[in-house]
């Protein structure tokens, strides 16, 4: 019994996490100690190690905040504020999430559309597909500030510019994944469809589309994560009024490290949730399609 617990992955992950937390507390003391010792010596305060540890875990603007400080800041800004307040992380998360989802929907739609075109039109396949693959190697995120500022100059602000950034970030993986998926049926299956005298449309709906579902969800999981990154980076330029990216930026302007860390943690939680949502969707769709998983 004990062996089974020790060998379970849950236990291993827990151990690693606990180790990371302990390491974090240690690092927090180590990184903050220089500033604190400097302060003690200037003010000529008597200090010992336990005072140093205590102080470095409760600094107002620490270099490295301790986990519980972040936790309390998160609790304060998530549960103690009204959801509509600008100090509430729920509000900022909602701003980010909404543009993430809109962008993801736009990008998926375009990506799937293009993939269908590529699979059916040979010229598109030869001419566009190499560019799509090559575009994976360039840092498209560098375009983000330009899109925000240029669209802003024409009066388009708010959700749409960020959604556009998210959309073109997740457009490429989805297009590539879908092309792979739509081409995944065996030659045998395609031949069988041909013996049934199936039209191209029938082959598409009855063979290619179901075969592409696993590939589609694999791309979805990648895309939703980078869609979130796109939304966050999209919030950096143009004054940054709301959203998790704005929290990061204002935090870095005013040296509010705790605020940066809590925004970062919330962003990570959101990413985890979005990917989990996709995994859940995947398993339920696969179940409905009669897959063994």
């Amino acid at each position, binding site marked *: 019994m004990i062996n089974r617990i020790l060998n379970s992955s849950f236990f291993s992950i827990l151990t690693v996490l606990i180790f990371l937390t302990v390491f974090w507390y240690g690092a927090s003391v180590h990184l903050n100690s220089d500033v604190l010792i400097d302060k003690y010596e200037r003010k000529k305060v008597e200090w010992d190690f336990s005072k140093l540890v205590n102080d470095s875990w409760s600094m107002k603007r620490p270099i490295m905040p301790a986990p519980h400080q972040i936790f309390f800041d998160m609790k304060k800004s998530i549960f103690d504020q009204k959801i509509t307040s600008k100090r509430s992380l729920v509000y900022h998360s909602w701003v980010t999430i909404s543009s993430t989802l809109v962008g993801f929907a736009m990008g998926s739609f375009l990506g799937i559309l293009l993939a269908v075109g590529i699979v059916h039109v040979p010229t598109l396949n030869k001419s566009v597909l190499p560019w799509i693959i090559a575009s994976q190697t360039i*840092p498209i995120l560098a375009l983000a500030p330009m899109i925000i500022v240029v669209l802003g100059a024409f009066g388009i602000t708010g959700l749409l510019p960020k959604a556009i950034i998210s959309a073109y970030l997740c457009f490429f993986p989805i297009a590539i994944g879908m092309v792979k998926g739509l081409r995944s049926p065996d030659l045998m299956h395609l031949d069988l469809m041909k013996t049934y005298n199936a039209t191209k449309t029938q082959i598409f709906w009855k063979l290619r589309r179901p075969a592409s579902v696993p590939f589609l969800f694999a791309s979805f999981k990648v895309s939703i994560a980078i869609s979130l990154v796109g939304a966050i980076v999209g919030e950096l330029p143009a004054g940054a009024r709301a959203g998790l990216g704005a929290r990061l930026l204002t935090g870095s302007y005013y040296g509010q490290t705790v605020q940066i860390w809590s925004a970062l943690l919330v962003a990570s939680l959101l990413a985890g949730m979005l990917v989990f949502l996709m995994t859940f969707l995947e398993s339920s769709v696969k179940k409905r399609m009669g897959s063994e998983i």
Partner: protein
Amino acid sequence: MKIAGYSYQIFITCFLIQIFFSRDWMMLSIRTSLFAIIPVIASLIVLYRGETIKHISGKVIISLMITSGFFATLGSVHENSKNISWGIWIYVLSLLILAWQVMGYWSKIDTTYNKKIAITINLLVPVMFGGLLLFLWEMLTVGFQVPQVLLPPPSMIGVAIMNSLEMLWADFQQTFLKAVFAGFFFGCFLGFSVAILVEKVPFLQRGLLPLGNLASALPIVGVAPIMVMWFGFDWHSKAAVVILMTFFPMLVNTLTGLRSTERMELDMMHSYAANYWQMLFKVRLPNALPFIFNALKINSTLALIGAIVAEFFGTPIVGMGFRISTEIGRMNVDVVWASIAVAALSGSFFYALLALIERQITGWHPSFRAS
């Protein structure tokens, strides 16, 4: 073949319509009108001597002749974009249909038997398509006088690149040669070494692998402001962001690669009385190479993104991310595009270099032989 014929007829009809009703764009200079007529001759040749395009040399000639039409419209639009007549747009539209048709010929060539032709075609058609996009971009932005702030024409971006080569080179040095390279190599090395250490302890493996997978979905770029606070404005903070971004993909991929060796192969090594290091260097690492290269390729893109985004949070007055974020504030969109072009080029060269090395080193691996 039927639709092919139509595209030539469409082109000739459109040409005739615009020459009767709106031809002034063609009459700007002798050269323009000459260049504009050549594609018409090409279409007539194809219509009346269809066998011309069956041979490769015929295809080349027809393609070149059609290309001259693009030069005609470009020249006309650059000379006089203020009062341009509608005829040119009909011409451009029908020319595009024609070009699409020609690209169709090229992509339909049977490349199963000749590898050299296959490579040429697979390069040629995308290049044609890229050229077509550039042409459209230039035509539309110049012809419709799109505000330069919204989208500068490619020619202007080219001029911007030429004018600011020195500045772009300094940015490239700061961002790519310092931050990206340092971070990339250190991050990948760290991920690789940790993977080899962790792999010896199954307990850690079970704990780290899911967390590493999770980390690849996290918006790690967000640590950029923290790193800038810790390591200052210079490239060190950017390298730190890059290290964090490249670490997890390398860790996860190397671990997966080391586990991909089959039991049988390990058993055989065991029967040779091979020790751990021999097994590692002779069987497991070579087997893991495709995974490692996969991580390197993923990381090459991530590293550039990390360095550029980190520069949005604070930097000395040099660097690609800095250039992009400040020049856009001053509405110098052409310089921004020039910077983006440099970033895109260096990103794809980096990737291509890694892919080339991969092909050299892991050419023996089944995953390569299959394709």
